[in-house]
């Protein structure tokens, strides 16, 4: 099926076209949903088959290119529309289509009764199309096509309920913000591409990576390339300083948050860094930047997550934080650990969002966790799955999150240094805390909602079955990536599978210091202890003694305010960037420079000519008799002169 891999993008595109053009006419919304889900489901099967086929190939032959047509051919630039089917793209494709399919199915239930359901499924399909192009593209330009395409779908889906209010503004403002901030990242990505083309004279992955090893290129050039690309990644994957769009992106329907803003699109940056690992590995300074940005983002987002009251906001900041983890991993050279975390995160974070969606669904669109409480008995399935996901993300041993998180922390310590590990561990503690704060406030305690208006109920099977599947994956998903300390030198299946992709980068980095197994187990125990303590503390506080939280908030009012308002980053950006540009453009550029200065000069030139003419024109009175008088006087003078000169 490798040769038919293009069907995995074509099918969702077909779904988009069918639902987009004819969806409005299809009266039965179930059919719309089935079309939307089936195309993605089929894509998943095709990817699965291609994956199995690739598994059967010897390691050297696992990277295959599927050529479709020549997209751009200008001068020395030849861009093929081609897909690269290798270990990395297959892994990502499985996540995208697999989790994507589950979320499509879930959406049939979640979006029931919405008038725009055909539009919703059309956009979702378009998203899968773009995302598959992103992960399958065999060159930077196809990747960029997907890269911008997912940004567009994100824009369309965040603003899906375009007539609704969202926080202080509207959903469409949130959508625009997401697109524009992403564009800032894309600007960096574009420049990175140009520099790559200039340096390596190609934009094809295989050629560029081969030449990156062969060409004598200065480290500073690699540094710039990596920096530009990383700017792109910070935009798409919501890292400092461009993370501000992701929390606002929660304005979209919850399945969108699960699919785009948790499981797939936001990990595109991680995928890209991981795909271009050799370029990053050749620029050690930028690797450090990546690790630092990742660590800081993880920490900062986690602190904000501690105090948020909107269920989706907590999850959004949690996503930002987990993405920071992935970049931390990439930054310390553990690319396969970062992709591993992408995968496990896709499982449990999609599950968390879908669970949140199920809660919101059952609570009549209420999102404030302070108005939940005691929902355990009303929605047992949602509760059970949500609980599993919370355990997984907190890093409780045995669940998926534990393995990937531990892998990252271990690499952060052994390749990065103690500080990176410490930040990671503290973040893990906070993650466990805010996740169980969420669980407690939502499912335990007394019921704080208005019983007259709200009647909590469990969601239908079409929504809970995807939850259960994801819960299953969140439990077992980690066992393909067992740490070496338990499974032996070649026991980490996931790492072995991806190893050929990162071999050149690893060779360049040449690290893996000589830490002992004892150290690894010790650190692992500490992080597990921290996570367990976080869980315990959260349960203790929010289940038994809510006063503690209140007192704490009162005692550290300033800090609480700071966190609740997300460090005022939005406000600072608004005041420092948005307003100056907007006001400057209006007052200085338009009203002054354009209207007064430039157009004033143009019209001024015309006015001057007009004024001068006004003066000269007075000579031309238009009275024929005065012309005649002047003529006669002239003749008389000429005659006089003639007579006198005789």
């Amino acid at each position: 099926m490798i040769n038919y891999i293009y069907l995995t993008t074509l099918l969702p595109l077909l779904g988009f076209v069918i639902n987009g053009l004819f969806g409005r006419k299809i009266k039965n919304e179930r059919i719309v949903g089935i079309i939307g889900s089936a195309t993605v489901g089929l894509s998943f099967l095709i990817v699965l088959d291609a994956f199995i086929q690739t598994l059967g190939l010897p390691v050297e032959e696992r990277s295959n290119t599927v050529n479709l047509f020549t997209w751009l051919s200008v001068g020395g630039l030849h861009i093929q529309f081609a897909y690269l089917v290798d270990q990395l793209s297959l892994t990502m494709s499985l996540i995208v289509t697999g989790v994507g399919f589950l979320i499509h199915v879930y959406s049939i239930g979640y979006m029931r009764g919405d008038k725009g359901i055909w539009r919703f499924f059309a956009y979702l399909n378009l998203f899968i199309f773009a995302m598959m192009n992103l992960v399958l593209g065999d060159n930077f330009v196809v990747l960029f096509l997907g890269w911008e395409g997912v940004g567009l779908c994100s824009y369309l889906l965040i603003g899906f309920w375009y007539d609704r209010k969202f926080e202080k503004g509207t959903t469409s403002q949130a959508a625009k913000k997401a697109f524009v901030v992403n564009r800032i990242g894309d600007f960096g990505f574009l420049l990175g591409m140009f520099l790559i083309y200039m340096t390596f004279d190609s934009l094809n992955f295989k050629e560029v990576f081969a030449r990156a090893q062969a060409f004598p290129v200065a480290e500073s050039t690699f540094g710039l390339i990596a920096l530009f690309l990383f700017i792109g990644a910070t935009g798409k994957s919501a890292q400092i300083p461009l993370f501000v769009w992701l929390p606002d992106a929660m304005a979209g329907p919850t399945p969108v948050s699960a699919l785009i803003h948790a499981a797939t699109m936001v990990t595109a940056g991680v995928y890209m860094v991981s795909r271009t690992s050799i370029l990053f590995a050749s620029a050690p300074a930028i690797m450090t930047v990546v690790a630092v940005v990742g660590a800081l983002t993880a920490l900062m987002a986690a602190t904000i997550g501690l105090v948020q009251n909107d269920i989706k906001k907590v999850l959004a900041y949690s996503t930002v934080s987990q993405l920071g983890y992935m970049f931390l991993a990439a930054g310390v050279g553990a690319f396969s650990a970062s992709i591993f975390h992408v995968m496990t995160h896709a499982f449990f974070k999609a599950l968390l969002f879908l669970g949140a969606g199920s809660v919101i669904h059952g609570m009549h669109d209420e999102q404030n966790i302070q108005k939940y409480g005691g929902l355990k008995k009303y929605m047992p399935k949602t509760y059970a799955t949500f609980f599993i996901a919370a355990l997984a993300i907190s890093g409780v041993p045995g669940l998926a999150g534990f393995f990937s998180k531990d892998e990252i922390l271990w690499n952060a310590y052994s390749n990065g240094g103690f500080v990176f590990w410490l930040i990671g561990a503290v973040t893990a503690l906070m993650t466990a805390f805010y996740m169980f704060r969420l669980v407690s406030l939502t499912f335990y305690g007394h019921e704080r909602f208005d019983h007259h208006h709200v009647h909590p109920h469990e969601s239908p099977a079409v929504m809970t079955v995807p939850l259960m599947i994801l819960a299953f994956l969140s439990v077992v998903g980690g066992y393909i990536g067992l740490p070496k300390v338990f499974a032996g030198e070649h026991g980490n299946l996931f790492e072995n599978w991806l190893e050929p992709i990162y071999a050149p980068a690893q060779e360049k980095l040449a690290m893996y210091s000589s830490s002992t197994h004892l150290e690894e187990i010790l650190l692992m125990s500490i992080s597990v202890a921290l996570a367990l303590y976080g869980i315990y503390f959260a349960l203790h506080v929010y289940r038994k003694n809510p006063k503690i939280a209140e007192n704490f908030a009162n005692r550290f009012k300033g800090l609480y305010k700071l966190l609740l308002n997300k460090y005022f980053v939005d406000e600072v950006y608004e005041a420092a960037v948005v307003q100056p540009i907007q006001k400057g453009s209006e007052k200085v550029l338009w009203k002054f420079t354009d209207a007064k200065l430039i157009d004033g000069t143009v019209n001024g030139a015309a006015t001057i000519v007009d004024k001068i003419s006004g003066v000269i024109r007075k000579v031309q009175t238009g009275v024929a008799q005065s012309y005649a008088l002047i003529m006669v006087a002239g003749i008389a003078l000429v005659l006089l002169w003639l007579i006198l000169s005789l």
Partner: protein
Amino acid sequence: MEQNLLLTYLLFTPVVGSVLVLFFRNEQKQLARWFGLIVSFVAFVISLVIYFRFDPANPQFQFIHQVTWIKSLNISYHVGVDGISLLLVLLTTFLTPLTLLSTWKAIEKNVKMFTFSMLFLEAGMLGVFISLDIFLFYIFWEAMLIPMYFIIGIWGGERRIYASLKFFIYTMFGSLLMLVAIIWLTVYASGMLGKFTTSLVDLYKVGPTIPHQIQGWMFGAFFLSFAIKVPIFPLHTWLPDAHVEAPTAGSVILAGVLLKMGTYGLIRFCLPLFPQSAVQYAPLVSVLAVIGIIYGALVSMVQTDMKKLVAYSSVSHLGFVVLGIFAMTVESVQGAVIQMINHGLSTGALFLLVGILYERTHRRDIAFYGGIAKIVPLYATILMIASLSSIGLPGLNGFIGEFLILLGSFKSPVLNSWWFTIFAATGVIFAAVYLLWMYQRIVFGEVKNEELKHELTDMNLREMIVMVPILFFIVWIGVYPNTFLKLTEASTQSILQQVGTYTVNLLK
């Protein structure tokens, strides 16, 4: 030489049509509309025939038809096309019938004269693109001002007289400088070649031998004339006025084709005629282009009038084209040519869409609208596609042009600096800001005015017939640009070669 009459047929179809339409009676409005549409469609068919017979591998001018005209001065009626001009000819013949169709309801006053003006305008534009004699070129260049002047001045908005006069005098001012330069050039050529000639092919050989200092002046005179037409910052202020006051059809043709005459002139005349000066002044021109990109985008962002917003966005988009031309790499110049077509399609589409709203409500201020997605979903979708194309989303046409231009300018040895590209690329961000902001304010949210519910109706069949072909090409160029890139490759290379041979030393 073998004569090929196809281009002459193409050129004279609208000319004959415009004369015939004058014999109609004023009351025969519907007849005049259909007649105009059919004539322009015939012209489109002829241009398609030319396209299919065109040999893209041949960098020379093709379909040449030469007839001696003014014998004593060796001036001849001399037409022909290469890949670049063919593409622009196709754009012209493609947009004109669509534009005429879009005015079906909008123009009620003096339909006969309007049809006459449009056809005459089409002939003028075609003439500019196919002339191979600089004298003939100049005649078309000036002649096409006249119908445009009337289109703005008669069928325009409130301040139409001001706008049309400004448009006319501003462009005329530039053309006169060019006329002086043309005269000097031909006199100089007669000294060099021993005979007076206005043939472009001959002048290509003469231009580069002009003494350095004088060539700079010549370049300046030509450049100024084209720069006003493009328009390049800071010569752009006629454009918003003209666009705002012009009727929809006028705006579409103005943005779609007329502005391209400026950039076409830069490629066809400034570069090959004065290669040394072009290379010397390329950084300077590029600075203006980049300022135009950012400035146009920022000013566009804060506009309150939809048409003005689109007009300023044109300044920004054409900045990309100029940057591409003066980066002088194959990628960037090809990108510039494609971007000319893209801009014609996407900005043309945007003007048509603004016109559709205006026809229904007679309002152009963004603040009046809001929430129309509910009332006119089809319109909202099409406006979204047109905006995205203008934003440069990969998969649609705008991306191809911008990508090639930026890529080419990044590695351009003529500009020899990344800063041009880095600043120009910020235009990509701002484009998203101003268009999406406009879109959000017009389309999303709650329905803002009750009037909208009564007055707005979704697009009808005629309007769909106008928009669908444009959207079709927007997607085509985005997905498979090679159809068009192939057409221009040989011609672009030959022009760059002409520049390259004379400037090898300069670049070292």
